[in-house]
């Protein structure tokens, strides 16, 4: 048990939009503890409730039930301007009528700091994101990546206890996004504050996070480190959503045995009763081509990726299968191959 309180405690929070029969439950009894200085990611497809949870923490929405605490103090009754959190918006929401420096100084001025302090701390925040040279520009004169940096500096300038980031990188192109990911991580370490990051990009979530909460339908399906989420998904949905995975339907044919729909019986640790419909999941990099492997397949497509290649295969019943294989000795397209599925790499979910 830790003695320091969590940065954020979300206790059985529910939220619906609309009234009566038309009401849509966006969050259903969600509870989560986010640690101090943690890079915590809410990951899920659009409509899973991740942004709503972030907006509840920021104070832009009122919760229906439950409570939200920051460092042990209840804050869910406070208006946004009294909460020790700041938000980086998806669209940045920089004030178009103010310069970069004035944008960053906004929160400091709201704290009624002296002019000298405002100037010094706004300057520091801008330097932190290397935007000092752009202090007198207007947001409209900046590129997307630069606006992103200013939005970060603006939210970090008042030194919040928690920084909330609502898909901040989604508007950037791939190369810039990769750069900003690294910077974001460095910034979090430097600033030493808790980041709550919302994204639908599972790769981004895996790269950045200390812990990830995978959300769907207003619930947290799985909460854990990127490694745990990737290697030991607790749900079929999580397995499918995070990274690439092959999902093979079948039926439990006996203890530790699953008969796949393509007709092959494989060894897999199924907890379900014999006869139950299940889905067997395996990552593309965990299967391998092997002489005398148990699963026959036909190569339909091969993509060269440099360090490895991705093979698209088809099983006997037409199910597609992705395989990441070493580039040496690649089979021809149309070749008959057989696959080895190590039992420890397989996960079995109820269908």
């Amino acid at each position: 048990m830790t003695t320091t309180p969590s940065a954020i405690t979300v206790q059985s929070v529910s939220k619906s939009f609309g009234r009566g029969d038309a009401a849509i439950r966006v969050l259903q009894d969600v509870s989560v503890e986010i640690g101090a200085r943690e890079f915590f990611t809410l990951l899920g497809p659009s409509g899973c409730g991740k942004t709503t949870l972030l907006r509840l923490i920021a104070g832009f929405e009122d919760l229906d039930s439950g409570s939200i605490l920051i460092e042990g103090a209840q804050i869910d009754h406070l208006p946004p301007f009294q909460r020790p959190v700041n938000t980086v918006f998806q669209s940045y929401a920089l004030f178009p009528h103010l310069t970069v420096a004035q944008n960053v100084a906004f929160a400091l001025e709201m704290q009624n700091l002296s002019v000298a302090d405002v100037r010094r701390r706004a300057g520091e925040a801008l330097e932190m994101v290397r935007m000092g040279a752009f202090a007198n520009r207007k947001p409209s004169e900046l590129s997307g990546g630069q606006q992103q940096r200013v939005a970060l500096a603006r939210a970090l300038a008042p030194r919040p206890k928690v920084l909330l980031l609502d898909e901040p990188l989604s508007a950037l192109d791939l190369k810039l996004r990769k750069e900003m990911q690294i910077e974001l991580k460095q910034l979090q370490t430097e600033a030493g504050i808790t980041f709550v990051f919302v994204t639908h990009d599972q790769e981004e979530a895996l790269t950045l996070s200390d812990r990830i909460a995978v959300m769907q339908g207003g619930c947290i399906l799985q909460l854990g480190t990127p490694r745990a989420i990737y290697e030991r998904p607790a749900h079929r949905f999580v397995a499918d959503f995070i990274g690439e995975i092959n999902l093979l339907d079948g039926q439990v044919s006996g203890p530790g045995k699953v008969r796949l729909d393509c007709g092959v019986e494989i060894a897999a640790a199924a907890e379900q009763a014999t006869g139950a419909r299940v889905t067997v999941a395996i990552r593309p990099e965990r299967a391998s081509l092997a002489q005398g492997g148990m699963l026959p397949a036909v190569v339909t497509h091969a993509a060269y990726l440099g360090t490895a290649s991705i093979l698209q295969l088809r099983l006997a019943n037409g199910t597609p299968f992705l395989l990441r294989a070493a580039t040496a000795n690649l089979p021809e397209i149309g070749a008959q191959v057989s696959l080895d599925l190590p039992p420890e790499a397989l996960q079995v979910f109820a269908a």
Partner: protein
Amino acid sequence: MSATSPFRRAGLVGPALLVVLILVGVPLSIMAWVSLLGRGATIGVDWQSAPSFANYTKLIWEEDFDGTLLFNPTYLSILWRSVWQAAATTVICVSLGLPVALWMSSLSRGARDIAVLLITIPFWTNLLVRNYAWLIILREDGAVSRAADAIWPFGPVQLLYNDAAILIGLVYSFLPFMILPIYAGFEKFDWRLLEAAYDLGANRRRALTRVIVPLAMPGMIAGSMLVFIPSLGSFVTAAILGGGKSMMLGNLIQLQFGQSRNWPFGAAISVVLLALMMLVLMGIAIWKNRQEPKR
């Protein structure tokens, strides 16, 4: 854009210039010329008279019987009252128009269209008719008057035939011209900016003064011009709701061209009014330029 030949450019801009010249330039020149002439015996202007600035000096000085010029504050006080009334109308319209426009832009799409319709509906009725309607609303034993009497402890309230009545009429007439430009600006307003302001520690008041008002400024300036300028020249409201007791610049001009048959003097006042409006417009332009220095 492809290079346009000077000939083609003249062909494109020419018609518009010609229309402006004929419909604005020529009448204004005639008016300016008339303002320098003398009063005619039958048609209001004597085209043969020698041009002079007599009509302008008459605005400030009065010629005594012995030929000395005496200061005459009558016209200046009318001018001052007109400017004051127009300015008050503009200020009231801004303070009513901003919240209404803000509220409108927070409505759903369909409700917005209905709100815009409701605000423009008065334009379907003639201004004269609408002013007479106010006459009925504000009359002595009308509902408004009685309600005011009930609330106001210091004796009966006179709502009609005074400056307050004119102000009510002017605000009513020109409020849509303030609401619509502000609303047009808010229609594209990114509400996340308001959330960002709250998020960064601004309470409602500071979010209003630091974010909403600056962003509504272009609409407020446009609206102020659309309200101030016609208010300054209006005469119908003052004639009907003011009971003709307190004269405005517009009434004075109308009087010169009508009953008094003194076109040159009317033209001179019109020129002064026009100059006043130009000054206001230039002031706003200079102020705007200073707000957004050229980059």
